C-alpha cells in the first residue's frame, strides 16, 4: 500500500483527490482506520424493544447481529460462526432464543455465548472450552437517546465524547418530546453504484445542489404534494433563480471536528414557516412548541430544519424525518439504509403524515431522492479515469470567507448557510482517521479546531 493521505485532502486549498472515491487501497485504509474505530450506528432501540428481538446489520465489511437479551441489555456480535465462519443468522430481523449455525449446529445465545455444540462430549472429548468460542462480540455498545451504536475499538472514547457537539443537533432530532422517538416499521434498503462518502458529504453541507438537482421537484410543488395536500401544481412553475444574490436564509453551519457537521435553518417565525403544512401536522408543530422550547432551549425552538452527518456514515434530514446509513460495499458500491423516525407520543395520524413526507421526499421513489443517485454514480465512475483522476474535486466554496460566530450553540459555527465548510470538515476528519492518528492525537486536533471541549447546548 502506498497511500499518502496528505496528497488526498488539501485542507489549505479545499481540494479532494478523486482517488478517495475509487482506489481499492484507499478503501482498505477506510476499513482499517474508520470502520473499526469509529462509532457506527446499529439500530433504533424501538426496533428491538422486546427481549429476544434481533436486527442484523453491517459495521463496514462485518455482518453484525444486534440483540436484546433476556436481561434486557443490548448486545452486538459478528454474524459468523467461530467453527467454520458461516453466518449464524440469515434473516433481517425477528425474535429468537438462540442462533444455530446451519453448517454443524454450533449454537449461540442472545449475548453471543456458545451454548450448544452437537456431539460435544463424544467428538471433542472435553477439549472445547466454550467460554473461548462465543461469537466475536462488538466490545463497545452504547446508546444515545434511542440510537444504538457499536464500536470495535476498545480504546475509543465514549459515544457521548465521540458525538461531541453534534449532540445539539441530535437532541433536536431525538429529544423534542418526553417520550422520545421511534422508527416507523420497515427499513428501506437499496444499492447504488456510488462511493459511500458522496451522500454523506452532500447531506451535511450541500446547500448548493438543490436548485439544480432537485429543480423538477420544486417546480411541481413537491412540498405540498409530499404533505398530502391537493393543491400541488399540475403546471410546472419557475424554480428558484440560479444567479444573483441569494435571498437571506437565516441559519448557521457547524463544521465540527472528526468529520462531523450540520447545518441549521432557523425560522423567522415558527407559525409562518410551518404554515404550508396541512393539519394535523401544522397543529402538532404548534402545540408541541412549548414542550420543545422548555426541553431544548430558545435556539432549538427556532429550528426549521437540520441536516446532520455523524461521521462516518450516519445522516439525518429533519424536514423529512429521515435517518440513513451509507453502508460501503467496496469503493464503488453503497447499500443505502433509510429509516423514518417520528415522535413516539405523536398521534397516529401525525405519524402517518410524517411518514408520507419522509418517503415521498427521500426514499428510492422519493421526488428528491431519485435525482441524487445518477449524480453520485457518475461522479464515482469518472474518478476511475486515468486522466481525470489526476484532477481534484473543488470543495473550496467560501474558504477563507467564513463569518465565525462568537456566541453560537456550538463552538465552531458560521453565521450563514452558503458555503462548503461542512464538506471540508468531513474530508479533514476523514483524513485524520485514515492517516491512523491515535485518539490522543485526534483529541488534540479536535481541541485545536473546536476549542476547549465544549458540551452541546452552551446557550441553553
Amino acid at each position, binding site marked *: 500500500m502506498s497511500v499518502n493521505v496528505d496528497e488526498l485532502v488539501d485542507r489549505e486549498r479545499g481540494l479532494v483527490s478523486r482517488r478517495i472515491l475509487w482506489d481499492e487501497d484507499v478503501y482498505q485504509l477506510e476499513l482499517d482506520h474508520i470502520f473499526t474505530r469509529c462509532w457506527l450506528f446499529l439500530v433504533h432501540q424501538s426496533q428491538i424493544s422486546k427481549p429476544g428481538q434481533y436486527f442484523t446489520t453491517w459495521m463496514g465489511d462485518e455482518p453484525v447481529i444486534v440483540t436484546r437479551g433476556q436481561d434486557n441489555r443490548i448486545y452486538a456480535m459478528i454474524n459468523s460462526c467461530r467453527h467454520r465462519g458461516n453466518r449464524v443468522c440469515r434473516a433481517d*430481523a425477528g425474535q429468537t432464543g438462540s442462533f444455530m449455525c446451519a453448517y454443524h449446529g454450533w449454537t449461540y445465545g442472545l449475548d453471543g455465548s456458545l451454548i450448544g455444540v452437537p456431539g460435544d462430549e463424544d467428538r471433542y472429548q472435553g477439549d472445547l472450552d466454550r467460554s473461548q468460542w462465543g461469537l466475536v462480540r462488538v466490545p463497545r455498545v452504547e446508546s444515545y437517546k434511542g440510537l444504538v451504536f457499536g464500536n470495535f475499538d476498545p480504546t475509543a472514547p465514549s459515544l457521548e465524547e465521540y458525538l461531541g457537539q453534534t449532540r445539539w443537533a441530535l437532541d433536536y432530532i431525538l429529544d423534542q418530546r418526553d417520550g422520545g422517538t421511534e422508527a416507523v416499521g420497515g*427499513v428501506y434498503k437499496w*444499492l*447504488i453504484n456510488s462511493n459511500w462518502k458522496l451522500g454523506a458529504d452532500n447531506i451535511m453541507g450541500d446547500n448548493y445542489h438543490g436548485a439544480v438537482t432537485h429543480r*423538477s421537484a420544486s417546480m411541481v410543488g413537491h412540498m405540498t*404534494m409530499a404533505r398530502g395536500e391537493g393543491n400541488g401544481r399540475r403546471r410546472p412553475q419557475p424554480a428558484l433563480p440560479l444567479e444573483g444574490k441569494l435571498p437571506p436564509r437565516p441559519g448557521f453551519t457547524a463544521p465540527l471536528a472528526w468529520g462531523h457537521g450540520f447545518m441549521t435553518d432557523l425560522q423567522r417565525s415558527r407559525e409562518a414557516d410551518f404554515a404550508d403544512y396541512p393539519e394535523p401536522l401544522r397543529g402538532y408543530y404548534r402545540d408541541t412548541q412549548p414542550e420543545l422550547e422548555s426541553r431544548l432551549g430558545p435556539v432549538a425552538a427556532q429550528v426549521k430544519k437540520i441536516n446532520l452527518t455523524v461521521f462516518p456514515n450516519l445522516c439525518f434530514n429533519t424536514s423529512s424525518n429521515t435517518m440513513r446509513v451509507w453502508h460501503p460495499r467496496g469503493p464503488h458500491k453503497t447499500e443505502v439504509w433509510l429509516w423514518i423516525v417520528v415522535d413516539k407520543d405523536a398521534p397516529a395520524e401525525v405519524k402517518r403524515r410524517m411518514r408520507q413526507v419522509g418517503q415521498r421526499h427521500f426514499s428510492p*421513489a422519493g421526488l428528491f431522492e*431519485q435525482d441524487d443517485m445518477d449524480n453520485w454514480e457518475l461522479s464515482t465512475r469518472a474518478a476511475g479515469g486515468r486522466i481525470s483522476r489526476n484532477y481534484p474535486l473543488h470543495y473550496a466554496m467560501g474558504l477563507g470567507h467564513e463569518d465565525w460566530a462568537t456566541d453560537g450553540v456550538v463552538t465552531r459555527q458560521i453565521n450563514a448557510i452558503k458555503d462548503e465548510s461542512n464538506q471540508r470538515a468531513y474530508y479533514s476528519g476523514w483524513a485524520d482517521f485514515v492517516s491512523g492518528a491515535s485518539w490522543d492525537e485526534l483529541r488534540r486536533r479536535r481541541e485545536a479546531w473546536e476549542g476547549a471541549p465544549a458540551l452541546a447546548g452552551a446557550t441553553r
Partner: protein
Amino acid sequence: MADPQLRSEIEEFLYLEAELLDDRRLDDWLDLWTEDCHYWMPIRSTRVRGDEEDELTKEWENSYFDDDKQVMRQRIAKVETRFSWSEEPPSRTRHLLSNIRIRPGGGPDELVVVCNFIVYRTRLSTDEDKWVGERQDTLRRTDGSWKIAERKLFLDEAVLKSKNLSVFL
C-alpha cells in the same frame, strides 16, 4: 374460472396499460385510473419461516409508494419539466405480465386481477434494472370501461438493486 370473454377483455386492458407506460404516454396512462385510486408498494424483508407475517410492511408502515392520484400526477408533471434528471434522458422500460388470475372484487362492478410482473429498465448506455413480483389490481367498471382503483405491488427482493424508482411499475 373466469369467463373467456371477460378474461380476454381484462388481458387486453392490462396490455394496453403496459403499452402506454412503455411508450411514455403517461397522461393517457393516468386516465385509466379512478379518481380515488391508490398505488402502494410495501417493503419486503428477509424473515425466517413462521415469521411470514412480518415479511411485508403494513399499510401504516413504510412503503416505496403510497400514492393517491394527485401524487401520481405530480410524478408525471415532474418528468415533464425536463429537469427530472433521473428520467432525463428517459428510462426505457418493458412491462411483462403473466400468470393472470381474475377474482371477484368488493362490489358488482369490481374485479381483483392478480398477475406476476417483470419490469425491465435500461438507462443511459448500460444501466439495467429489473423489478419482479406480484401485482394485485382492483379494476372497477365505470361508464362501460375498466379503470384501476387500486394497485398493490409486492416486490420479491428485499434490497432494491436499482438506484431509484423513477418509473411506474
